[in-house]
């Protein structure tokens, strides 16, 4: 099985000391891979370095046939590696419609109208709010918009950084169902989450990160029964 995304020994950080001490992870086409870990483990740092927002100190990132280790975010987006970031990062001063249109700024422009319709079918609530400024949406709506904006770029791999954060239990349920559905339609997903049980329920494989290192990895089903993981994250 050849990997779609392959990250090898990624070392990265912000100040003098690294946050990531050599993280290795891969995602194959069609997979849902969960990246789990507690607050401050380095998950978002990992994503942002993979997506080119920061320049990694060492290691190698490849996507499809390309080495994207030192690429600009724009290049990485153009190749179809799309991140829906923690905190949504929608454009608050732009309307919902404009946010979605900008999702196709670098990629997916040719099919923009069709994808726009498709996103609105996926998130009917957004259709009612097309003219509303994104900054005035509720947290859940903003999360839908952020994912919709990501889908507008016709991702080959979608990185979702804590999509369930701040959502009500019902919406969390819906969110995981949606991720599973998108995956069934063929989308590869790297799901970064703290919601261990639900993530493992939909993921094929999973990695556990602690203090900037991958400490555990394997089939999601196996990990769900792993005593160490259950003890650390589920308290049982």
């Amino acid at each position, binding site marked *: 099985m050849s990997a779609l995304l392959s990250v090898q020994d990624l070392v990265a950080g912000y100040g003098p000391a690294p946050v990531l001490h050599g993280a290795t992870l891969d995602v194959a086409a069609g997979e849902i891979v969960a990246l789990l870990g507690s607050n401050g483990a380095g998950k978002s740092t990992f994503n942002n370095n993979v*997506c*080119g*927002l920061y320049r990694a100190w060492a290691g190698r990132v490849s996507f499809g046939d390309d080495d994207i280790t030192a690429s*600009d*975010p*724009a290049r990485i*987006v*153009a190749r179809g590696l*799309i*991140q829906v*970031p923690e905190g*949504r*990062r*929608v*454009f*608050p*001063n*732009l309307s919902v419609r*404009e946010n979605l*249109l*900008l*999702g196709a*700024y*670098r*990629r997916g422009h040719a099919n923009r109208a069709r994808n726009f319709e498709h996103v609105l079918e996926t998130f009917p609530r957004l259709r009612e709010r097309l003219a509303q400024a994104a900054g005035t949406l509720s947290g859940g709506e903003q999360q839908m918009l952020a994912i919709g*904006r990501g889908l507008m*770029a016709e991702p080959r791999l979608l990185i979702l950084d804590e999509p369930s954060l701040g959502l009500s239990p019902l919406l969390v349920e819906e969110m995981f169902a949606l991720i599973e559905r998108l995956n069934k339609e063929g989308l590869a997903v790297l799901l970064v989450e703290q919601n261990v049980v639900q993530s493992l329920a939909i993921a094929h494989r999973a990695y556990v990160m602690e203090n900037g290192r991958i400490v555990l990895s394997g089939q999601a089903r196996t990990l769900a029964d792993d005593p160490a993981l259950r003890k650390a994250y589920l308290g049982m």
Partner: protein
Amino acid sequence: MLEFQILLPSIVNGLTLGAVYALVALGLTLIYGVLHIINFAHGSLLMAALYAAFFAHAGLGLDPYLAMPLLAAAFFVVGYALQRWVIGKASHGKDQNVLLVTLGISIAIENLALYLFRADTRTIETPISYEMLDLGIALVPYPRAIGFAAALGIAALLWWTIERTDLGRAIRAVAKERQGAKLVGIDVDHVFALSFGIGTAVLGAAACLLLPSFYVSPSVGNVFVLVAFTVVVLGGMGSFTGALVGGLAIGVTESVGGLFLGQQLGQLGIFVIFIALLLFRPTGLFGSRLA
């Protein structure tokens, strides 16, 4: 009591002046709204554009109105390069550095102009310099009438670009959410430079509209930059409508103020408004849209 017949022409006259003020202010407010930079070089760049229009006319015999697209294009390139390779590089992302860099650029341009052209004031004459347009309520010099119409036309084009195009959406996106912009593949440095370029391209156009009814000297930029800052504060930093309405209001204030207080003191009214605004409504009349 002042006669209505005097007041009305004065207002019309003020509007023609105000439209060009608005244009200059639009450039300033665009740059502020997107980059959060107060561009102190705005006035001296306008002065440079006026000289460029002057020499295009004096040296090449190019009518300022014909030179307008060329100058706008040339100043777009200047602005793009300034932001991308001078201001952006030298500032290391620190606001106080940006202030110093734009101030430095402004001083450099002004001294270069003094060295090259002395302190002389220069004017040009075009075939329509003394023609008047009879509006019934007022006689307006043709260059002023053209300046008014063209300034509003350019403002409309600018509005359309910002509101209705992918570039405009990217510009507004970058103004508020840079990380998000990067994640949809917007090249943020490029969009910054484009915004700065558009802000200075507007000066190239404004210079061509101003020159036939105005003058150029190395210090002419100061006149406009003070007015432009007042307009921007009046309208709200970063607000497009604010700059437009503010520009027109300032033009009328100056013109009507001149009627009451005499030509020399016409601009006094502007600064009274400016100070009053800072005291009572520091976010401006329209608040901020881009920023």
